Each structure stands twice: as C-alpha cells, then as structure tokens.
C-alpha cells in the first residue's frame, strides 16, 4: 500500500527534525521539558502467532525518556521538537528485546486561548528500533494529523489519522527459506518490516473530579502484520509478502509478513500520583485480520508510571 503522504524517504523526516533543532536557537522563546515513562506489562501473543503453539506470551518492562523544546510561534501556534530513547526487555522472550531512538516534530494550531479551544495537531516522527536480530530491525516514519477538543471539564475527544512507513535493512539470503522451494517462480522478499500502513483513530477521555482519567480508544489500521510460526505452509507461502527466519527465537521459527487490517481497542485508567506524575493502567486488544482469512489476536495489559519534568 502506498502512503498518502508525499514523503519519499524517512531520511527526509530526520533531516527536517535536525534542521528544526539546528535553527531552533534563532527562536528565542522556548521551554524545555522532559518526560520519563516506566511501563511493566504482559503481552499474550508476542510473535502474533495464529494458533495455540505459536502464541507465546511474555511479561515485559519498557523505559522511555524524551526531552523536548516547545516554541510558541504565535498566539495560536506552537511547535514541539523532541527526541527520545526507549528500551524494552521481555522476561520470557528475550529475542524481542529492543532499543529505540526517535526524533519528532509536533505543530499545534489552537483556534483560541484556553484549555477548551479546539486544537489541530500535525506531527512527524522518525524512529529506529534495534532488536536481537537484524530481521526485526526497522526504521519508522510516522505522519499524523489529529483534532483535539475538550468538550467539557469531564470529556476530552481526540480524532486522528496517521500514516506509517516502515523500512528494514536489506538482509542476506536465508538458506532456510530457500530450502522451502515451494514455488521457484515466486521469490519472496526477506525484509519483514518493509511496509506502509495507514490508520484512523479516536479516543474519548472522561475526567473524574478527583483527577482520575478513564479513556477508551479505537484504532483501525490498514496495513500489515509480522507473525511467526514453526510450520510455514505452502498456503502461507503463497499469500505472504515477506519471509525470513525469525531471529527472536533460537531456531525453527519463521517470521512472515501479511497484508492485514487491525482493529485495536483500548481502555485506560490514569491516577495522578503527584502534580506532574501519574500511575496508569492500560488494556489493549488487537484483532488482526489478514489476507486469506488468517486472523490473530493479542492482548496487552500494562501498568505504567509517567513523570513530567
């Protein structure tokens, strides 16, 4: 699927962010802030396996830190430039451990003063993720447009759409894949994380008088899934868009890319733990429908701590 946004290379986004940072000193009015997040949770189907033997669950711990500079370009316009680093460690599936870095630019247009004015938000981010093996390494360019509106002291609405370009390194020939030899006329690419996707999303948030927040969200992704199996069949070979030995497992697992639509449902509860921090409970359910009728589910439960500095 082609991205609807005319950005030809993730490098362009990186260059844009770097340029903003370089020129940022010429904008005298700015606030620097940073945010730390620590997130512990459990994922029911880390490799996105289709059936019982391939649904590997694991608990995980993620730490992320970002630092940002906010510029007020005018009374209605702000620009936030940020950079972040994140690391995830899986307790049972160490092959999915990853380290990521990202840069982002976020422009907000606010129709008026105050917390109740509608906001149009445009964002671009570029991130790199490195796993235990190169086959899962990827660089991700995201373009996002969202509309935010506080409807009342209690209700806050977010609607948005985004486009993602995921790119993977060129990988060396995989002798295991070549051994399959199902169809000599059909040579699948190896790059599991070469794909584009788009999504639309909405989130509604309810704020209690004591400061607790309850939110419910939905995201529909039109894109791809990368799943893993120990039994790559001919049928799978025929519908997959990429195939490679899964480096997240020691041996015998193959990862494959399928075109898929994903419905993501999420619920969250956020409890303030201080003026600038909160403890959050989140639950997400992923219902992934791939071509040829393959379907996958995943559930993530997490508890996180977020602190603004």
């Amino acid at each position, binding site marked *: 699927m082609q991205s609807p946004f005319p950005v030809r290379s993730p490098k362009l986004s990186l260059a844009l962010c770097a340029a903003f940072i370089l020129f940022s000193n010429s904008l005298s*009015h*700015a*606030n*620097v*802030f940073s*945010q730390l*997040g620590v*997130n512990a949770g459990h994922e029911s189907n880390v490799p996105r396996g289709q059936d019982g033997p391939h649904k590997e669950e694991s608990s995980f711990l993620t730490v992320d830190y*970002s630092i*940002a500079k*906010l510029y*007020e370009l005018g*009374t209605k316009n*702000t620009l*936030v430039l940020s950079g972040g680093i994140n690391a995830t460690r899986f307790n049972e599936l160490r092959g999915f451990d990853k380290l990521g870095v990202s840069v982002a630019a976020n422009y*907000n247009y606010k129709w*008026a*003063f*105050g*917390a109740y004015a509608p906001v149009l938000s445009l964002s671009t981010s570029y991130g790199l993720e490195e796993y235990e093996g190169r086959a899962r390494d990827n660089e991700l360019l995201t373009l996002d447009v969202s509309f935010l509106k*506080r409807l009342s*002291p*209690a209700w806050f609405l*977010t609607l948005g759409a985004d486009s993602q370009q995921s790119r993977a390194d060129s990988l060396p020939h995989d002798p295991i894949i070549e051994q399959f030899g199902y169809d000599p006329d059909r040579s699948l690419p190896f790059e599991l994380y070469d794909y584009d996707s788009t999504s639309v999303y909405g*989130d509604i*948030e309810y*704020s209690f*008088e004591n*400061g607790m*927040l309850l*939110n419910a*969200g939905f995201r529909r992704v039109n894109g791809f899934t990368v799943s893993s199996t120990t039994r790559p069949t001919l049928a799978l070979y025929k519908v997959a868009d990429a195939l490679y030995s899964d480096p997240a497992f020691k041996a015998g697992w193959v990862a494959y890319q399928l075109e898929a639509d994903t419905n993501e449902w999420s619920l*969250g509860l*956020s409890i*303030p*733990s*201080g*003026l*600038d*921090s*909160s403890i*959050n409970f*989140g639950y997400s359910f992923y219902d992934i429908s791939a071509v040829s009728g393959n379907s996958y589910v995943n559930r993530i439960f*997490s508890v*996180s701590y*977020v*602190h*603004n500095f």
Partner: protein
Amino acid sequence: MITPTMILTDNKFLLYRMKIQAFVFVAISPFILCAPAVSAQEISLHLYDTNGSPIQDAVVELLSDTAVDSTSTGMREAQIDQMDKEFVPTVTTIVAGGSASFPNSDDILHHVYSFSSAKTFDTPLYGSDADNQYREMFNVPGVVEIGCNIHDWMLAYIYVGESELMAISNDVGIAQLTDIPSGQYRLRVWHSRLDAPQNSVEQDILIEVGRVAELELTLELVRDRRVRRAPSANRKRYR
C-alpha cells in the same frame, strides 16, 4: 446590630441554600463606644458546600447605592505571580480602576491571557527577567479569568469589585469584612464554581452601628473547570 432584611431579593437564594443561621453579638469594645461614627461593624461569613466542606477562594463583596465612608483602602494594586507553573494567588480582588502585574518566578516562560468580557488581554511569552513589566488596568467590574497559553491547567481569577468592601474566604471557608459603615447593603458572594448566573448570589442586608455578625452560607458548587495537570500514559503531551 446586623439584621438581615429577610427579603430574599432573588428566589434563587433558596435554591442556592444560602442560609443565615446565626447571628453572634459580641461585646462592644470601649474603643468602639468612643467612636460611634464609624464603628467596628464586622461580618464574618462561614462558607460551606453542600457536603459541609469549607469553600476557599470565594469573594464576598458589600455593595451600596450610596458613597461609603470606609477606612478600608481596598485593593488598588495586585500581583499575581507564576510559581511552579501555577498562578499565585488563585483568586485576587481589585477595585475597578486598579491594576495587576504578572511577574514570573519560574525558570520557564509563560504567556498570560484573558478573554473575559470584563478585560481582554494577552502578554507575550516571557520569563522571570521581565519582572513586573506586564501590568494591566482593570476598569470594568466583573470577573476576569486568566490563563497561560502554554500550560492549560494554569487558571486564576481576578474579581474586579464595584466597592472597596471585599474579602476572600480562607482555607477554612471564612471571609471577614471589617470596618463596615452602617447602612443598607447588598451582600454578593462569588465563587468560580458557584452554580448560579455569573457564579454569584446576592442578598440585601442592613448593617447597624457597633455590631458583629457571623453568617453561615451553604452554596451549591459545580465541578471545577480547571484541567488536570498530571500527564497520562494515554496522552503524553505537554499541554
């Protein structure tokens, strides 16, 4: 003696459950006896919400149709600081024609604004080096809601009064007015969360020489318009 006229000038008073429950007469001091012209009439208002919790930051104002001979100087100049990304104080009273400055004690930048009908203004983004550079005049009586264009949770109110007889309730819900000349007044109570038109209620009262009264008012409040400051995992945004 302070005597309520018992004429409820607005039926809404019943709705707001404004109750004058007790009048406590205290002994007149020798000083007051020697100076009956402007004696130490006082009102002490105890403000509670419907749950019985004290109401802080309510403004009590006495309004008169005639010129008031008062020893009170009122608030002609005020200062609303910005400390740890909050306005301090949250509620300020100024007599119409007075002014307020907005120093920034934080090491970050703020952008103060108001779009209230009583006063519309906005400053540029500025830091602590601006000192008291940003000062605004408040000539029109009313309530001015001020915010920061960077930090949406920052919210404060400037009550621009018609009279110099104003007080703000403290953390135990008590507002005290002293040195009140005797006469007929309208007692106005305003709070940012008061469930009433313009967030205020009024009642006529008659203030007589040399009396101190304690009034207890129960007011119905709506939820705060202030937004949460703490970040959430769902919206990891600065604002």
